[in-house]
């Protein structure tokens, strides 16, 4: 809220400079976010928290300043000299929705333009000026925080005002010119025939006051906060009035503000003020709250002198009396935020000064917390990825529903169970991610466009899969994306980028002590966005845990990316925690020497290495220590449909020294086995 320094000074006679006043207010909970100088005044931009609607006015802030600085407040008093006749009768249908409605008429006004001082004051508080009648209602609103509305009395039918809901759905044209569709429970002000204002929000166009109005009906009321807020939200209609009503206004202030405005109108525009019409369901009875001195000390952490506490509450307008080891405090009517003892303790602490509260460290009972295995797995992946040269990215959790089409993901896939946002900022961010891949592809795009040649990115974030329950299933997913730098290099390597990324995965698996990951190439297990010949799914004991592969060229085209991209996904990172075993047990270091035999076989190109390796291992057994593939060769003199695989097999026994003869005999039996089961030829 904007507040003029000079205006505040009219109510509290302080001698502080603007900057010092701003500091004092800030340290008491009224943060002055900016000060702008206008003429000889300083306009404060004050952040009023939602619990303090009573401070949405000059008098409200002055009350606080008076309490902070302990300087008396000058109160507004109004004495109306001459009152003639009566205004229209007022009927309030539901006194829960309208707790007080007071009005006066002012007849025979000559509404001209407002005097300069008034115009300036409104303008410096960001309020548009209009005719003097409207300006005065706005002035009193700013000064006293009580919204007022002025009707052109001659545009109202009959001598009756009612406050009641719309009853049926209807249209109503507000003074901003909009024809608004009202639901049946919107509270309205009616004349004898028709609605004339949206209660507490905005007047109607047809009863608007103008400079030609001569007879005025002035309204000052107290409407129910929730009802005004609902109507304002649903109609998307907000005003200075609704802003205050929906936060709560001071019911004791209604008539004073009405009289203040009536008096100003009579002074500045002439006219005769009528007697008061005041429909009031009954005086507001603020509650009494007991606060024990002990509780103040135990919540704040320092003993605040009892007299000091009492004085603070007094200064803030509370009625207090001592009772036992505490105080019974009655908050003023405008402090509807004060509901229980802690609210009052805050008031004491706030004006006592948070700065005086000592910094202490709590004494607490030790309680061990179990090691977090899931966090540990994330740490391992982060470390491993970092060693492999991959940088972590974080993307917004949003996805464009279209990108699932771009990824060619089938309609029955669980990734189609999107959680949609009702009010997205843009349509590309209209749903929650069910896969990390589109974001990573966008990262590739951005970096390619900025001239980057090599991409090594990964992300570990949650995806959100619709579950049919209220809340989606949230899964922590990991995805990596890789583009091999194809520019000339001092240390060239010619292999397919797939193998680099596979190595990155194998490094993670090794650090997680997962040794039985199976690279599955069965067609229906391959992700639809991957190159069918350069991809696999990752399975662990029959369960699919992820996928690895080169992206399909059509997908890259859809994402407007040029160049080969490989990607890796682990679908459920948290799920890895029961697949790993971090228990270590020592195995004795081999005592007996090993013997190495190399072998090169020519097999059909379709036979995967894993099958050949399994064949070797199945031969025997416990004396094959390792099988190391060191060469894959295709081309002359190998026939076109075949390839040559060269292995180094290391034999060792844990309980004796092997003889050349037994190794030779096992080795040749392996060769024979491969000849028959894999149709392999020995390459000489």
């Amino acid at each position: 809220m904007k507040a003029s320094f000079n205006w505040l000074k009219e109510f509290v006679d302080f001698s502080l400079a603007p900057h010092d006043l701003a500091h004092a207010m800030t340290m008491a909970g009224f943060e002055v976010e900016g000060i702008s100088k206008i003429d000889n005044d300083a306009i404060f931009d004050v952040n009023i928290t939602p619990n303090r609607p009573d401070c949405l006015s000059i008098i409200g802030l002055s009350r606080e300043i008076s309490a902070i600085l302990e300087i008396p407040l000058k109160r507004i008093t109004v004495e109306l000299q001459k009152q003639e006749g009566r205004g229209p009768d007022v009927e309030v249908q539901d006194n829960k929705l309208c707790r007080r409605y007071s009005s006066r008429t002012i007849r025979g006004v000559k509404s001209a333009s407002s005097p300069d001082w008034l115009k300036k004051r409104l303008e410096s508080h960001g309020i548009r000026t209009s005719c003097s009648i409207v300006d005065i209602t706005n002035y009193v609103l700013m000064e006293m925080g009580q919204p007022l509305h002025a009707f052109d009395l001659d545009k109202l039918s009959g001598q009756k005002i009612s406050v009641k809901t719309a009853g049926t759905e209807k249209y109503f044209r507000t003074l901003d010119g909009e024809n608004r569709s009202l639901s049946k429970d919107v509270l309205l002000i009616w004349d004898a025939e028709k609605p004339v204002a949206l209660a507490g929000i905005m007047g109607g166009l047809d009863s608007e006051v103008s400079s030609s109005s001569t007879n005025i009906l002035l309204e000052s009321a107290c409407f129910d906060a929730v009802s005004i807020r609902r109507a304002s939200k649903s109609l998307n209609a907000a005003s200075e009035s609704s802003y205050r009503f929906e936060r709560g206004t001071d019911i004791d202030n209604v008539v004073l503000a009405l009289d203040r405005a009536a008096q100003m109108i009579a002074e500045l525009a002439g006219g005769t003020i009528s007697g008061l019409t005041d429909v009031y369901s009954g005086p507001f009875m603020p509650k009494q709250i007991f606060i024990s001195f002990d509780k103040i000390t135990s919540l704040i952490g320092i003993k605040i002198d009892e007299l000091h506490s009492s004085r603070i509450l007094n200064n803030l307008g509370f009625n207090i009396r001592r009772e036992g080891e505490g105080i019974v405090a009655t908050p003023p009517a405008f402090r509807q935020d004060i509901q229980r003892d802690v609210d009052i303790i805050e008031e004491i602490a706030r004006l006592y000064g948070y700065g005086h509260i000592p910094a202490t460290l709590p004494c607490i009972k030790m309680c061990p917390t179990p090691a977090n295995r899931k966090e540990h797995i994330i740490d391992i992946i982060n470390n491993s990825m970092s060693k492999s040269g991959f940088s972590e990215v974080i993307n917004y959790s949003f996805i464009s529903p279209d990108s699932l089409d771009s990824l060619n993901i089938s309609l029955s896939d669980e990734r189609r169970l999107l959680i949609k946002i009702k009010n997205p900022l843009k349509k590309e961010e209209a749903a929650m991610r069910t896969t990390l891949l589109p974001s990573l592809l966008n990262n590739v795009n951005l970096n390619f466009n900025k001239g980057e040649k090599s991409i090594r990115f990964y992300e570990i974030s949650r995806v959100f899969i619709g579950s049919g329950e209220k809340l989606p299933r949230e899964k922590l997913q990991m995805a990596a994306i890789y583009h091999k730098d194809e520019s000339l290099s001092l240390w060239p390597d010619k292999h397919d980028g797939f193998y680099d990324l596979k190595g990155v995965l194998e490094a993670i698996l090794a650090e997680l002590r997962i040794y039985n990951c199976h690279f599955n190439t069965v067609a229906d297990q391959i992700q639809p966005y991957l190159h069918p010949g350069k991809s696999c799914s990752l399975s662990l004991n029959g369960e699919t845990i992820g996928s690895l592969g080169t992206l399909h060229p059509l997908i890259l085209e859809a994402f407007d990316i040029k160049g080969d991209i490989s990607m890796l996904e682990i679908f459920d990172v948290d799920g890895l925690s029961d697949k790993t075993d971090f228990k270590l047990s020592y195995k004795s270091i081999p005592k007996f020497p090993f013997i190495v035999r190399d072998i090169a076989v020519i097999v059909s190109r379709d036979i995967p290495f894993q099958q050949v390796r399994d064949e070797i291992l199945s031969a025997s057994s416990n004396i094959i220590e390792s099988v190391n593939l060191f060469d894959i060769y295709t081309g002359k003199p190998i026939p076109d449909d075949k390839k040559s695989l060269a292995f180094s097999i290391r034999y060792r026994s844990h309980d004796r020294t092997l003889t050349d003869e037994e190794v030779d005999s096992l080795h040749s039996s392996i060769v024979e086995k491969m000849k028959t089961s894999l149709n392999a030829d020995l390459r000489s």
Partner: protein
Amino acid sequence: MFNDIDSIKNLFREEIEKADNLKYLQELKIKYLGKKGVITGKIKSLGTIPPNERREYGQQVNDAKKYIEEIIDVHEKALRTSELNKTLQTQRIDVTVPGHYTPAGHLHPTTQVLNEIIRVFTSLGFHVEQGPEVELDFYNFEALNMPKDHPARDMQDTFYISDDVVLRTHTSSVQVRVMENNSPPLRVIAPGKVYRCDADVTHIPMFHQLEGFMVDKHITMGDLKGVLQVFIHMVFGPATKLRLRPSFFPFTEPSAEIDISCVICKGSGCSVCKNTGWLEILGAGMINPRVFEMAGYDPEFYTGFAFGMGIERVAMLKYGIDDIRLFYENDKKFLEQF
């Protein structure tokens, strides 16, 4: 009488002087010490020496043998070293050529700062809890004393999934979830992503927060100040000043904004702190009894504090990043600086 030995040694001395390569040295070694060598011959002929001279003659031959062996040895070592040096010189490479390695990757600055903050609080005995990012309105608002139609909801622009499901607007949503399933004492931090329906130069629709709270008997606002002071000193250095300023959050009472002395200008005033010397860094307060009631705790029995901070804000101050939008663009030139 042993002139023959002396003359062998003399001759050897002459010959060894010319030994400038290993091959020649090898020939010399064979000539003197080989199976048919001069010295070996003398040893074999010991039997022909009269017994009374044999002992001394034998001694002389042995000395000569040792003498020759040692000298050959010395020369051999010297020659080997010099020949190796020659070979090594021919193997010279250009050490100024860049080495071959995979540069390590970088953790996102948000993760790095988050990890640092988590370490500080776990060292104080806090432990990490998580909650869902797509959250019930109840845990995000209602249980935190923000019923529907409460104006405090305007403080946070909310993404809605349905009328009672939202993208959590703060990690405070974890508070009541944890309280429902645990009894005090509690020392919990809850880091994670949060969402606000807001995007401009200074706002992004997703960012990270860390919520912390402690619940026990006798927890005071002084304790809140003390714990946050430890945190601020560990993350921004022990000279950083801390200031609490009254504020409002529906779920704490009393509530405070925590400012730290500007880490850029050290309090003298700059553009980052808008010349105030202070930077707003956390919101905090004593947990509102309403929240305890929502969680089924007796507010007359327990007190507690809670605080929440934006991680990007901390990272921006720590690293001097001036545009929050950089965080999630994922430009390599940005990521690789951390």
